[in-house]
């Protein structure tokens, strides 16, 4: 009759105990958090008395998983950045120009002189003076093509070359663009991660979103502006030959040249060759330092290829000026005094000590491959988060007490059983959240409060059914059994549909909304478990002990 196998009983009790044990650390959140931080620090090799003391705040044999608090509860900054992947196409085409020039110049007899034409930044247009050589030139330039280095693009070549009379147009192929985008984004992710790590905050979350977006969430950052300061600048460093100096921002220049402003001298512009001698990518180190006059500067060192290129260029151009360009502004344009062979050098400008330190950090972390555009940014202050936690806790507590009283008034002893199950249910939600390291947000707390209200639904369905069955069934045991059996299909249908909406919400939503979907979905699962198994077990225990002839539900 009314019976649950001992094995099942043990399983149900164990599930509850494990779930509740996992939830326990959240009761003393601060202590456990300090413990966890200290343990992580000690594991990474740092250890001191303060850390050991923190680590001892929480016994290590107890579970120490915590619910992650979302930005809206903890405070912090959130940025959604779009990587301007197309920027890289232009740089790639720029890098291709010398190769194209050289390969065509080698066949001057057939193709004639080579000149670069004005074009969109993401294509390269060259004109040859001998139109009859167009076919030959096409052949030569196509010879520069490389296979695309990606799995999906394997087999296709990286450039598409077309000839229109004497003008050759070179563009990146679709496959190469896709591969470049992928590389750019991976690189941007890595560099953002390095820069934020250098700022030393805890638990930053840096995730890719879709094809060209990066979501950055940093709890503890004072504001999104501060966060932008850490990652905002591209820090593209290039060394470019100087053609001339001018005071006209719109000075007419050849297609191979560009005009860039000076960083610290307003009204001064430099005409530079577009193709850099060396770029920041070839830096291996950068450190804040001082020049011979004691002004802040940044010293740097190139890798071997960079060092060779830089050495060769300085050897050939002694006496000529060259420009150090950071993010399209000329930091300085010194004249080459002598051949610089070692591959190291120093950047001087009118820096403050702080600026030179920042610049060194940025250069060391590497340049962002492309510019970032910020699509969305949110700052939540820690006080506001704490207010929300307090309000949420209060609401949950009051809601819970009200529901508990209501249930006891309505169902008496059975209401008490339902209330025990409800309490276990809330514990289980926190246990599972801690276990999977899910993030609790303010709407997430609302989800829990809503679950408190809805969790008793399954029990209400069962109890109401038992009431009905008591009128017809033979004896209370049978009525209880039938009540559970017959209410099951309604419980299942009702909860599966709600679970479906929670799943959709989780898939579509992000941030706080996803937090809501998580707690709502988990709450449905745990409430079905507690309603079907836990209350039933409690009722069976009670029934076996008391053997009542009649029951009142």
């Amino acid at each position, binding site marked *: 009759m009314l019976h649950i196998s001992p094995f099942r009983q043990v399983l149900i009790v164990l599930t509850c105990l494990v779930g509740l044990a996992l939830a326990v650390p959240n009761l003393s959140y601060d202590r456990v958090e300090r413990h966890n931080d200290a343990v992580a620090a000690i594991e990474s090799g740092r250890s001191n008395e303060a850390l050991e003391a923190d680590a001892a705040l929480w016994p290590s044999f107890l579970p120490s998983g915590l619910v992650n608090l979302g930005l809206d509860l903890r405070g912090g900054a959130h940025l959604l950045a779009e990587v301007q992947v197309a920027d890289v196409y232009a740089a790639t085409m720029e890098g291709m120009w010398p190769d194209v020039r050289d390969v065509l110049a080698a066949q001057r007899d057939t193709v004639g002189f080579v000149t670069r034409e004005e074009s969109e930044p993401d294509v390269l247009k060259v004109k040859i003076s001998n139109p009859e050589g167009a076919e030959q030139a096409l052949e030569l330039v196509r010879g520069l093509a490389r296979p695309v280095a990606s799995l999906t693009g394997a087999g296709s070549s990286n450039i598409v070359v077309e000839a229109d009379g004497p003008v050759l147009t070179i563009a990146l192929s679709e496959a190469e663009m896709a591969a470049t985008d992928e590389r750019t984004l991976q690189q941007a992710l890595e560099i953002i991660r390095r820069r934020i790590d250098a700022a030393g905050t805890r638990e930053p979350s840096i995730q890719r979103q879709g094809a060209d977006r990066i979501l950055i969430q940093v709890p503890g950052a004072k504001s999104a502006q501060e966060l932008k300061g850490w990652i905002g600048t591209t820090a593209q460093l290039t060394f470019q030959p100087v053609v001339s100096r001018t005071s006209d921002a719109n000075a007419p220049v050849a297609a191979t040249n560009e005009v860039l402003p000076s960083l610290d001298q307003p009204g001064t512009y430099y005409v530079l060759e577009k193709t850099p001698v060396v770029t920041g990518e070839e830096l291996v180190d950068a450190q804040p330092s001082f020049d011979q006059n004691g002004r802040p500067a940044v010293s740097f060192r190139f890798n071997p290829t960079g060092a060779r290129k830089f050495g060769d260029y300085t050897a050939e151009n002694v006496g000529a000026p060259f420009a150090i360009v950071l993010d399209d502004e000329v930091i300085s344009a010194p004249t080459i005094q002598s051949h610089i062979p070692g591959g190291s050098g120093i950047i001087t400008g009118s820096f403050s000590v702080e600026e030179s330190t920042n610049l060194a950090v940025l250069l060391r972390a590497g340049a962002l491959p492309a510019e970032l555009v910020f699509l969305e940014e949110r700052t939540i202050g820690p006080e506001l988060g704490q207010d929300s936690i307090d309000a949420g806790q209060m609401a949950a507590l*009051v*809601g819970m007490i009200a529901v508990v009283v209501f249930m006891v008034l309505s169902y008496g002893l059975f209401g008490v059983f339902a209330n025990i199950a409800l309490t276990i249910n809330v514990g289980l939600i926190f246990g599972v959240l801690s276990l999977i390291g899910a993030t609790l947000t303010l709407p997430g707390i609302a989800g829990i409060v809503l679950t408190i*209200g809805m969790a008793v*639904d399954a029990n209400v369905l069962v109890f109401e059914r038992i009431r009905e069955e008591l009128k017809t069934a033979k004896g209370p045991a049978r009525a209880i059994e039938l009540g559970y059996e017959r209410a099951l299909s309604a419980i299942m249908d009702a909860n599966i549909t*709600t679970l479906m909406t929670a799943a959709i919400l989780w898939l579509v939503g992000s941030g706080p909304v996803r937090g809501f979907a998580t707690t709502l979905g988990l709450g449905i699962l745990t409430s079905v478990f507690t309603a079907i198994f836990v209350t039933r077990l409690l009722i069976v225990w009670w029934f076996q002990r008391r053997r009542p002839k009649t029951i009142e539900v």
Partner: protein
Amino acid sequence: MRLRLVPDNTNINFFGYAKATFGGSVILLVASVVLFFAMGLNFGIDFKGGTTIRTDSTSAVDVGAYRAAVTPLGLGDVTITEVFDPTFADDQHVAMIRIQAQEGQESVTAETIGRIEAALLAVDPTITFPSVESVGPKVSGELIQKAILAVTGAIVAIVIYIWLRFEWQFALGAVVALVHDVGLTIGLFSLLQIKFDLAIIAALLTIVGYSINDTVVVFDRARENLIKYKVMPLIDVLNLSANETLSRTLMTSGTTLIALIALLVLGGDVIRGFVFAITWGIIVGTYSSIYIAKNVVLMLGVKRDWSKEKKPTGNQFMDIDA
């Protein structure tokens, strides 16, 4: 003595005022559509783009002075509203400042935020800025699409599920009830001009989930009674089912409402709109599962020849009520 929301054996004729209730709902739904197009929704920055800045000060909020400070910055449309909440301390005065999306920018620049903050600090040096949120027009456009997709997706998924588990008439009844609930909620938000943002979409989906929950319980009982009372007219079967489940329906709505009201009063202003939407939705959802979903099933009629129906197999939950 037990608390009883509903007497043990009710025999309420839920179809007695079918014309009034169903007709009333139709009128309200039409009114919601009209309101939506006439007044529109007060879209938050999630859907419209722009920036909101929350200010917190120990001295009283002077909306006029705030406006006078911000207007010279030439940021276009600026809305300033003071926020009141029972959870605030006595000397805590909060306002929300909203700025339209700026031309040529996605999220607002550091410089703009700095200018606004400086202008406000000049009015009241005790102001702090607990939150600053900015959403660019590109993302907000996508969020709208996603939101519409989510709500329709949820409704479609549920209807397919109900259709598989019940007859198609029930699925149609359920979808009409869901559209009714979502429609009335949107109507109320248009009428009251409460901020409509992503959280409200989450609330709409919760309403959908909750309302279907109620509807399914009534349907489940109707399915059972249709088998039990093979010759009873459909209208009586539906009425009986609604009466039998009435106590449960009101109990569950009651407990949920109790929890929600606690949240509405004590949960703070940040989620008030969200909780308000859910609270309203639960009331409407309970109503619609009693008065809307069943009526649609009755209008469509249900095939009653169960003898020829093959007993469903392969699902442990389906056999229980057979």
